[in-house]
Each structure stands twice: as structure tokens, then as C-alpha cells.
């Protein structure tokens, strides 16, 4: 009830003369309805992860488990314990791919975005046009030649086959460049007069100023790498990432429903937590995402 009151207040307080109460209520209902549509599967995923198996198939499904249990996580760890590769190995592989990939992406994309955003030089327009065009097609389009290139370089069965293409994700470069354009030119000019090199300007002035954009690039790449299963690039069992191992386990039938819920819960809670912590700065980045 309290929540409802505060929602109502937030509508009425800001309501201007041209707003009708009826319209407000209708819009509020629409929001609430789709909020439930959006949140329900996620809440069920979280709650199922803590339900005993018999409650999983109870109807009507309970939003919150009656007998809270960690059985599903225990089953999961047992299943994992039975695999011939220690589970920590899958975990390590995913952490390695995710950390190197995101750090590399933030650094390399920012290095590239800085000159694009702040200077004029031959080749700048054409390069940025290519970046914008690359946003217009999905990576699946280049999957086949990518495989051939990676095989030719000799990166098959090497985490770099996942990391390197991810580092060059053009969405990150695009957002970073748009964000950097907001940095006042005077700041860079005065550093130059003080005799700072381009590299010093980049690392000591520009990079600290674009921290909100870092977080955005991190979450976009993080969720891509965190859920990667190695695809057709990695076939050695000891190099497979976590998502692959978890998916194998989840590929069971209905008795595995509890384990699947535990797996999904683990996979979703990490990126969501990251987003909760950095939300306001991520949204800030997107205010400069516009296209002409």
C-alpha cells in the first residue's frame, strides 16, 4: 500500500495542468502490467532456484518458495563434481575471457575513440562511417569468414578467438566516441600548452573524465562474454567456459528443472547486480548516443 501511495504521489506532484488523472491511472496500469510481464520470469527463475523439486510443479506456481532450500545448488555442485574437469576450471576460463575482454575493450576502444572525437585528420570520416555501418548488421553475417580467419591465424581452441573479436566491438567504440565529444576542447588545448603529449592527455585527462562510459562498455561486453559458450572456436574440454558447462547440465529433462533454475540464477544475477550498481552512469552515457 505504501508503494502505491508513493507511486501516486510521484504522479500527482509533478502533474501539470494539462494532465488528466484518468490518463495517469491508465498509464500507471499499463506500466504495472508490463512490469509484471517483464519481471515475472526473472522472479520465478530466482525463486525456483531455491525451491524443492516438488514445489517446482505446484499449481498455481508460488512466487516464493514455502520450504526454502539449497538442494538445487547442491545437485548442481554434485553434477559438476562428477564431470572429469574440475568445475573451477570452467569458472576460471570464463573469468579469464570476461576480464581480459572487457578491460581490453574499454582501453582499446577508448584509445581509438579519442582521436575520432576530438581531432580532424585524413581518414577520420571514412573510418567512423564504417563503424556506423557496422552497427547496422548483426555479427552472424560475418560468422563464416570469421571462422576461416581465426583458423588461419591459428587461434582455434584458444580463448583469444573469443576475446579479440569482442574487443573490436563497434557499439562500444561508437558510444565512447559520442561521449568523448562532450569533453570541452579548452581542457585539451590547455594541457597541450603545458606540453603534455597526446598519450598523456589521453590517459591523464580524457580517460578519468569518461568513467561513466567505461561502465557502459563494460556491461555491454560483459554480458556478451559472460554468457559465451565458446561456440565452434573452442573444443578442448579444459578450455570451455562456464556457460557451456552449465548448458550441458541444463540439457536434461524435467527432473533437472531445479538445476536449470539454479544455473539460470547464477548466470543472471551477476550482470544484473553490476547494472544495479552502475545504472545512473550507464544511462548518462546513452544521452550522447544519438545519431544524425
Amino acid at each position, binding site marked *: 500500500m505504501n508503494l502505491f501511495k508513493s507511486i501516486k504521489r510521484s504522479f500527482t506532484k509533478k502533474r501539470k495542468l494539462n494532465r488528466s488523472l484518468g490518463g495517469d491511472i491508465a498509464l500507471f496500469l499499463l506500466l504495472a502490467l508490463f512490469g509484471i510481464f517483464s519481471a515475472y520470469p526473472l522472479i520465478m527463475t530466482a525463486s525456483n532456484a531455491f525451491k524443492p523439486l516438488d514445489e517446482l510443479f505446484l499449481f498455481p506456481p508460488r512466487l516464493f518458495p514455502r520450504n526454502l532450500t539449497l538442494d538445487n545448488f547442491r545437485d548442481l555442485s554434485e553434477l559438476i563434481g562428477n564431470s572429469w574437469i574440475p568445475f573451477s576450471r570452467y569458472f576460471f576460463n570464463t573469468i579469464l575471457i570476461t576480464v581480459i575482454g572487457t578491460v581490453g575493450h574499454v582501453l582499446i576502444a577508448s584509445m581509438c575513440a579519442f582521436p575520432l572525437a576530438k581531432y580532424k585528420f*585524413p581518414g577520420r570520416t571514412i573510418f567512423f562511417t564504417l563503424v556506423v555501418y557496422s552497427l547496422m*548488421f548483426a555479427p*552472424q553475417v560475418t560468422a563464416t569468414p570469421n571462422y576461416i580467419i581465426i583458423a588461419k591465424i591459428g587461434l582455434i581452441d584458444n580463448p583469444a578467438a573469443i576475446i579479440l573479436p569482442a574487443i573490436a566491438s563497434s557499439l562500444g567504440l561508437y558510444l565512447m566516441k559520442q561521449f568523448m565529444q562532450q569533453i570541452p576542447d579548452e581542457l585539451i588545448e590547455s594541457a597541450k600548452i603545458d606540453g603534455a603529449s597526446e598519450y598523456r592527455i589521453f590517459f591523464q585527462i580524457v580517460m578519468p573524465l569518461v568513467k561513466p562510459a567505461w561502465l557502459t562498455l563494460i556491461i555491454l561486453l560483459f554480458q556478451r562474454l559472460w554468457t559465451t559458450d565458446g561456440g*565452434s572456436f573452442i573444443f578442448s574440454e579444459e578450455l570451455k567456459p562456464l556457460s557451456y558447462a552449465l548448458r550441458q547440465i541444463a540439457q536434461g529433462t524435467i527432473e533437472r528443472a531445479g538445476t536449470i533454475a539454479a544455473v539460470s540464477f547464477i548466470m543472471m544475477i551477476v550482470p544484473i547486480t553490476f547494472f544495479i550498481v552502475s545504472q545512473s552512469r550507464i544511462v548518462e552515457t*546513452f544521452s550522447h*548516443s544519438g545519431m544524425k
Partner: protein
Amino acid sequence: MQLLLKNIKKSKHYYILMAPFAVLFFTFTIIPVFMSLGISFTYFNLLEPPRFIGLDNYLKLILEDEVFVVAIKNTLILAVVTGPISYLMAFVFAWLINELRPKLRAFMTLIFYAPSISGNAFLMWLLIFSGDVHGYLNALLIRFGFMTDPIVWLKDPKYMMMVIIIVQLWLSLGVSFLAFIAGLQSVDKNLYEAGAIDGIRNRWQELWHITLPSMKPQLLFGAVMQITTSLAIAEVSMQLVGFPSIENAGHTIVTHLIDYGTIRFDLGYASAIATILFLIMITTNLIVRSILRKVGE
């Protein structure tokens, strides 16, 4: 010419900064596009060297491949339904949320955005659409007497597309949604007051004459993101209705591409599919962008 060389030399440091990204970007994005085009005119299975066969792949694809026709049809249905609806949803919700107080706004943003970053949590829909009497939707519909026998949602070609559309819409409030929220927050507040003086009476007029034109750049960006995703639907289809799906009812251009590229290893044919998809994506994007540029004018 001399001037250009001098310019290039002067910009040396910029090129050094850009080099790592540029090298990777060309290797994994630009070169593959052209390679794909080249390979599409050959027969290539990775073991033997590619053999030039002219337009054969394209002719076979368009004239003989009945599954491809199904794939195109499904992809277009999915794109035409989920593209505009998810774009509209992203905008409408961003707009509604914008009027809430900051804390509540942050909470609602999280709720709408969370599905798109929640990994494989969309597998929850397997349980909701499960085909036996225990599936949440079946149990609900039977309980309230809408039907007596469970529907096999994920295996009945009549319902498969609908399931994919629902789940895809659930996943779709992603990057463009964030861009819209940010765009709405940065609209100049003075414009609204000026508009009120100029005789803007309700929120619809305000939306059309002030809000939309001020956030046109974000609208364009969001459109590009949404079009690209909605034409590349594959993962949800493969995970929910299976791959290959019954009667190919969930088959899309991308699953067709995956079929030939990673299962049959007919890379020439897969590249022809990729090239056609590439052309569809770029053309749609350019057309929609040129339409959106006219908003509010």
C-alpha cells in the same frame, strides 16, 4: 597531395592510438564482409580449396531451396512484428518512466532492462510454455476452464512463432531503451514551458512537437539497434522450439546460415545466405533512418 602527406604525418599519434582497434576491427568485421561476398561465388567446404561456381549458390538459394523461403518468411514476420513493437515499447516505457521520481524510475528501468542482460534466464519460458499439464500457461488456462487439454506450445507449428515473438519482445528492451531514457532526460526543460505558452494543450501535442524532435538522434540510434536485432533472431528460436524446429516453423535466415555454416560445412552457400542477410539489414536500416529523419518536421 603534399598537404595530405603533411597532414598524415602530423596526425601520426592519432593513428598510433587508433591502430589496435582498427587492426582488430578490419580483421573481424570489415574484411569478413568482403570475404563473405567472395566466398559466396564459390563451392567451399574448408577441406578443398574454394572452386568458383559463379551465381550457382544464389540461384539455388532463390530458386530451389524451399526451406530458405520458409526462413525468409519467418524472419520477415518476426522482424515486422517484433521490430516496430519493441521499438514502440522501448519508447513508450521510457517516456512513462521519465515522469516518475528518480528512485522509482531507476527501479522500473532495472525491471524493464533486466531481461536483456539476464543471460539464459529466458529459458524460464520453457517452463511457462511447457507442453504438459504442469506448464504454467497450460495449468492456468485449464484451471480457469479456457480449455480441457494442454496445448503443446513449443512443438505445435501453429503456436511456435507466437511463442518466439513473445519471448523476443520480453528480451527486447535493451540498448535502445536506455538510449531513450537518457534522451528524454536531456530534453531542454525550457522547451516545455515555451511550448505551453505557444498553445500546446495536452501531452500528445507536447510529445509530437517538442519531445520527439528533441530526441531525434537517440531515436535514430535506437532504430538501428532494434532493426539489427530483430532481423537476426535465432538464439531464442533454437533454444525454445528446437533446431531444427518441427516443420521448420521456427526457422529463420540466421538458423539457416548456422545450419549450412557449422553443420553442413557448405561455406559458399552459407556465405550467400549471409550476403543476402547483410543486404536486407543495411537496406532496411537506411530506409528506416531516412523515414525517421522526417519525424516532427
